[in-house]
C-alpha cells in the first residue's frame, strides 16, 4: 500500500489542503446530514424557513418518525386508522435477499474471473464483453418480459426468483473486477505449488484464496449496494411475498402531504447496514478495486 | 564531477530505529567508494539520504562545495540506480533512458544522439524498442544504468544494482560497471552486501554495521588491517580466525594453554598500555598460518577437516571448541587426525581489545 508521503511542508499548502477537504466533505455529506436530522424532526420543523440545522438548538429532536416506521404507522393522514408497519419484515427480506445474492454473485463471479484470467478461453474478449453488455439494456425494456417469464415459471413472490435476478445483475461487475485482480496476481506461486505435486484446486485453496479475500470483499460492497437499492424489479416481481424495503420507501412518501420525516427515518435505518458493512471492509476497498489495470 | 562529503549523519525513523548513527565519510572526486555491510546496517539509508530520497534527522551532506540537505533529489545533480531497476513499466527502453532528458526539456535530436551513444556503450541497442516486462534482468539492469549515465550527473548512487542478476552475468557486470565508471570518472557511492563486489570494485570500502561506520579504507587495508572485530569477521573468505587470548607477560596465552605466542617487548608493551581490560582477541588470516609436522610452532593441534580448493587446500584444526582455518598450498598432505603444529606470521596478525572490539596492534 503505497501512499505518497509528500509532506505538504509549507503552511499555506496545508491550509489550502484542509479548506479543500472541508468543502468536499460539506458538499458530499451535508445532504446526508440533512436526511439524518429530518428523521428526528416532527412535521412543522421540517419545512420551516429559515431551515432548522442544529438539533437541540434549532429544534427538539423526536423519535416519533422511527416509532411510526418501526412499530406502528398512522395510515391515512385524515382518519385515525393505524396499522402495524411492514418495514421490519421487509428489512429482513432485504437483508436475506441482497445478502444471499451478493455472496453467491461474488463467489460465482470470482470463479469465472479466475477461469478467464488463468485459462486460455476461446473468444475470451467477446465473452467478457457479452457479460458486460447484459447490464446495458435499460431495465424498462426487460421488466415486462421478466414479469411474464417469472409469472410463467411461478417465480413471482418467491425468495429464489428475485435473488437469482440480483445475482445475475451483480455478476458482470464481479467478473470484470476480479479478472483484473487475478491478472495482477503472479502465476508463479500457483505453478510452483503444482510442480510440488499440488492439484490446481489445492494450489488455489492454499495460495490464491487468502490473497483474493480483500478484493472479493471490496467487490461485495458494490454488488450489495446495487441489490439493496434496487426498486424496479422487486416491486414488479415480489409485490406480495418477500418484498424488500424499496417499495415501502416509495409508499411511505404519502399522499396529500409528503411525509419527509418518515422517508428520512426509513432511509436512515435502511442505509445503515451498508454503511456499517463498508466501514468493516474499508481496509480492503483500496486494495481490491484496482481491476488489475495498473501494471507493476 | 564532484566530491561527496557526509558529516555526522544521523537518521532516526519515525518508529524509533536509529538507522544511521553519526556517520562521517568523504568520497573524493571520481572515487568509487563502496558502502559495505549486512542488510539493515544503514548503508541504503545513508545512500538515500545523500540522494535526498530520505531526509536525515541531523548532519550535513555536501556534493561538490554545495550543502544539499534541503535540496530535493532533482536538484542534487545525482543519478540513482535502484535495486529493482525502477524502470517505467509502460515506457520502452528508449523512452526510459530518454526520460531524464525529456524531464528537463532537452531537444529531441540531442536526446536521440545521446540515447544511441549510451545504448552503444551498454550494448542494449537491440532492446531499445522493448518494454521492461519483455527484457531479461541483465538488459533491464543495463537500461537502468543507461538512464543514470545519460544525464552526466556529478555523482552516481547505486543501491545493490547487481543483486538480481545471475552469478555469471554479475561478474561480467562488475567489470563493465567499474570500467564505465573509470571512463566517465564520476564519483560513485555503491551499496552492496556482497564483499567480493566490494573488494573487486571499490577503490575504498566503508564497512557499516547497525548504523555505525566501522572502518573506511582500501580493500587491502580493510582486509589485512580490520579496525574492528566485525570488519575482521565480515571481510575475507574464509573469515579471519579470531581466538580469545590474554596477555601473560610478553606472550599471548590461549584459554586451554595449547596456544602461547611470544611477542616482541615493544608490541606487548603497546598492547598492555592500550588494552581496556584483560580480554583480548588474536586475529589471524588463514593464509598467514603455516602448518608443520613437528612440534616447534606456536600451537599444537589435530587436523579435523581438509578441503581441496583447486589452487589451495583448506585445513581446519580444533582449538578450545572453535576451528582455526588454515589455507596452504594444494600439495601439503596432512590427513585428518594428524598431529600438527601451527606458527603465526607476527607481522600480519592483529590483536583486538575484547571489550571495545577495536584493534590495538
Amino acid at each position: 500500500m503505497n501512499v505518497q508521503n509528500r509532506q505538504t511542508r509549507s503552511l499555506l499548502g496545508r491550509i489550502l489542503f484542509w479548506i479543500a477537504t472541508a468543502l468536499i466533505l460539506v458538499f458530499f455529506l451535508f445532504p446526508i446530514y440533512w436526511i439524518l436530522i429530518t428523521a428526528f424532526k416532527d412535521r412543522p420543523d421540517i419545512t420551516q424557513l429559515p431551515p432548522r440545522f442544529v438539533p437541540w438548538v434549532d429544534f427538539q429532536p423526536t423519535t416519533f418518525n422511527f416509532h411510526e416506521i418501526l412499530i406502528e404507522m398512522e395510515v391515512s393522514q385524515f382518519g385515525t386508522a393505524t396499522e402495524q408497519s411492514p418495514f421490519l419484515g421487509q428489512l429482513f427480506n432485504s437483508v436475506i435477499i441482497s445478502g444471499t445474492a451478493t455472496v453467491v454473485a461474488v463467489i460465482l463471479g470470482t470463479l469465472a474471473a479466475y477461469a478467464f484470467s488463468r485459462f486460455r478461453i476461446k473468444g475470451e474478449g467477446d465473452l467478457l464483453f457479452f457479460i458486460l453488455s447484459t447490464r446495458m439494456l435499460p431495465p424498462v425494456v426487460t421488466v415486462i418480459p421478466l414479469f411474464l417469464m417469472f409469472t410463467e415459471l411461478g417465480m413471482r413472490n418467491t425468495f429464489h426468483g428475485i435473488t437469482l435476478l440480483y445475482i445475475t445483475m451483480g455478476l458482470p461487475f464481479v467478473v470484470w473486477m476480479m479478472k483484473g485482480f487475478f491478472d495482477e496476481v503472479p502465476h508463479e506461486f500457483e505453478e510452483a505449488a503444482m510442480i510440488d505435486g499440488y492439484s490446481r484446486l489445492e494450489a488455489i485453496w492454499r495460495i490464491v484464496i487468502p490473497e483474493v479475500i480483500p478484493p472479493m470483499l471490496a467487490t461485495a460492497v458494490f454488488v450489495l449496494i446495487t441489490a439493496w437499492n434496487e426498486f424496479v424489479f422487486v416491486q414488479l416481481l415480489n409485490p406480495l411475498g418477500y418484498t424488500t424495503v424499496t417499495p415501502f420507501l416509495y409508499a411511505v412518501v404519502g399522499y396529500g402531504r409528503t411525509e419527509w420525516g418518515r422517508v428520512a427515518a426509513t432511509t436512515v435505518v435502511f442505509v445503515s447496514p451498508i454503511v456499517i458493512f463498508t466501514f468493516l471492509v474499508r481496509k480492503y476497498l483500496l486494495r481490491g478495486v484496482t481491476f488489475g489495470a495498473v501494471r507493476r | 564531477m564532484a566530491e561527496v562529503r557526509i558529516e555526522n549523519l544521523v537518521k532516526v525513523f519515525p518508529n524509533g530505529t536509529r538507522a544511521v548513527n553519526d556517520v562521517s565519510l568523504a568520497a573524493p572526486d571520481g572515487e568509487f567508494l563502496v558502502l559495505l555491510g549486512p542488510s539493515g546496517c544503514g548503508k541504503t539509508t545513508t545512500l538515500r539520504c545523500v540522494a535526498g530520497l530520505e531526509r536525515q534527522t541531523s548532519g550535513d551532506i555536501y556534493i561538490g562545495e554545495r550543502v544539499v540537505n534541503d535540496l530535493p533529489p532533482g536538484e542534487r545533480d545525482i543519478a540513482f540506480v535502484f535495486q529493482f531497476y525502477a524502470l517505467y513499466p509502460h515506457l520502452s527502453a528508449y523512452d526510459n533512458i530518454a526520460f531524464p532528458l525529456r524531464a528537463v526539456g532537452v531537444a529531441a535530436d540531442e536526446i536521440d544522439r545521446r540515447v544511441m551513444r549510451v545504448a552503444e556503450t551498454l550494448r542494449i541497442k537491440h532492446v531499445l524498442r522493448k518494454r521492461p516486462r519483455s527484457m531479461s534482468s541483465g538488459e533491464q539492469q543495463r537500461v537502468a544504468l543507461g538512464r543514470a549515465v545519460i544525464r552526466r550527473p556529478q555523482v552516481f548512487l547505486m543501491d545493490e544494482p547487481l543483486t538480481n542478476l545471475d552469478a555469471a552475468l554479475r561478474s561480467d557486470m562488475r567489470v563493465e560497471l567499474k570500467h564505465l565508471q573509470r571512463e566517465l570518472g564520476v564519483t560513485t557511492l555503491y551499496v552492496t552486501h556482497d564483499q567480493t563486489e566490494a573488494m573487486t570494485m571499490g577503490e575504498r570500502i566503508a564497512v557499516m554495521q547497525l548504523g555505525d561506520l566501522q572502518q573506511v579504507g582500501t580493500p587491502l587495508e580493510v582486509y589485512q588491517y580490520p579496525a574492528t572485530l566485525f570488519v575482521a569477521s565480515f571481510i575475507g573468505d574464509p573469515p579471519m580466525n579470531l581466538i580469545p587470548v590474554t596477555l601473560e607477560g610478553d606472550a599471548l596465552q590461549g584459554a586451554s594453554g595449547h596456544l602461547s605466542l611470544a611477542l616482541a617487548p615493544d608490541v606487548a608493551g603497546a598492547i598492555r598500555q592500550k588494552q581496556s581490560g584483560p580480554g583480548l582477541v588474536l586475529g589471524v588470516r588463514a593464509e598467514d598460518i603455516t602448518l608443520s609436522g613437528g612440534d616447534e610452532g606456536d600451537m599444537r593441534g589435530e587436523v579435523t577437516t581438509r578441503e581441496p580448493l583447486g589452487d589451495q587446500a583448506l585445513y581446519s584444526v580444533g582449538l578450545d571448541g572453535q576451528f582455526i582455518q588454515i589455507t596452504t598450498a594444494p600439495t601439503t598432505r596432512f590427513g585428518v587426525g594428524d598431529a600438527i603444529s601451527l606458527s603465526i606470521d607476527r607481522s600480519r596478525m592483529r590483536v583486538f581489545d575484547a571489550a571495545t572490539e577495536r584493534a590495538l596492534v
Partner: protein
Amino acid sequence: MKRSVLLLVAILMLVTAIPVAAQEKPSLSIIWFEWPPCNALAELVKSYEEADITVTCIPWGQWHDQIFTDFAARGGADLPVLDSQFIGEAVAGNHIIELTDWMQENMDVETYVPAALTYYGEYPLGSGHYYGVPMIADVMVLVYRTDLFEAAGFEPAATWTETLEQAKFFKESDLVENGWTWFWCGAPACGDQLQVAVNQIIWSWGGELWDPETYAVEGVINSPENAAALEFSRELYLTGPEGAGNFTYNEVVDGMCNGTAAMTAIWVGFAASLVNPESCPQAENLGFAVPPGETEHYLSLGGQPISVSAYSQNEEAALEFMKWLQSYDIQIEWVKLLGYSARTDVLASEEFQSAAPYNPIFAEAYQLVKDFWNLPEYQRMLELQGEYMNLAVTGQMDVQEALDLIAEEHQAIIDEAYPDGPPAQ
C-alpha cells in the same frame, strides 16, 4: 372523470389480497388507490352479507399500471376502480364487460348527474355503450383563507378575472406571501395535474380541447379563447410561490396548511385533510366555495367509475354487489363515510348536506362538470398537453406557440390512430 395524481414513480405494484376461498359465500376483490375514500369503501363493504369483499388500496403511483399489468396477465381484481380516462384503454383491450343493459335494469339511471354517467362509463363518447358506473364523484372546490378575506374585505368571486385581482392583491400585500397556489406540474410523473386545472379555465373561456364529433384538434385547442385562457393561467401562476412549475397536490396542501398561500382550488377529496387541525395548522381559517367560472362555468370532473373485470371468476356476485352499492340508502351510508355520490337525490339529501361543511358546495359544483377525451391514446395526448402548457404557464414558451405545437402533435396522434375518421358510433 378526473384523475387524482400522486408525485411518485408509476411503476406497478400489485397489492391485491388473495381472496380467501369462503365456504359458500363467493369472495370478491376490489382494487383502488390509497386515499381516504378507499378506506371508507373498505368500511362500507363490511355491511355487505352476500360475499366476502376485500378492498385493496395501493399507492396512486402504481394504480394505473398495476391494473393494466394484471389485465395483461389476464387476472387481477373482480371489481377494478378505474379512472375515467382509463375506460378507453380498458375497453380497447376488452378487459371490462359492458354494463349498458345491466344499468337500465338495476340502477335508477335517471337520478344520476347525466355528465357523470357519460364521462364515467360511456365509450366511445355518445356511442351509448357503458362500461363503468360511478364509484365516487369528485370536483374541485375553492379553498380560501377566511381570515385574510375578512382582512381584505373580499368574498369568494364568481369569475376567474375577479379571483385573479384578489390573488394579485394578496401577492402584493404583506398579509400573506402568495395569492393563488396550484398544482402546475405538467411533467410525465405528475400525470394530469396541470391539465385538469387549466382545462376548466379553457372551458370557462368557452374553449374546447377537441371536437368529439369530427375528432378534430387543429384549430380547436389552439383557438383564440384557449390562448386567452392560457394567458390568464400564466397571470394566475405569477401570483403564486416562485418556481411552482413542479408543484403537485402535496405542495399545494403544504402551502395552504402552513399559511403561505391565500387561495387554491383542489379536489374535494383533500378537504378532509385540510379541515383536520392535527395535520393542517391553518384548518380553522380555511373556507370553501364553488370555484369561479367566466363567460361559461365548467369544472373539471373528478371521481372514478367502478367496472367488472372480464376475467372475474364470479361475475354474477360482482354485479349483485354493484347493484347493492348503487342503491340509494347505501349511497347515503357512503356519503356519511365522507364518500361522494353522483346521484342528485343523494346530493340533495339532508345526510349529505350535513356530513361536511363543504358538501353543499360540492353538490352545487358537481352540476358543472366536464371532462377530457377518454381515447385509448389518452396518455400520449395528456403528456404533450402537460409539457407544452407547463412551459407556457411558467413563461418558458409563448402561449400561442405552445397551443399550436399541442394541436399539431395531437392531430398527428389522432390521424395515426383513426386514419379514416372517428369510429362508427
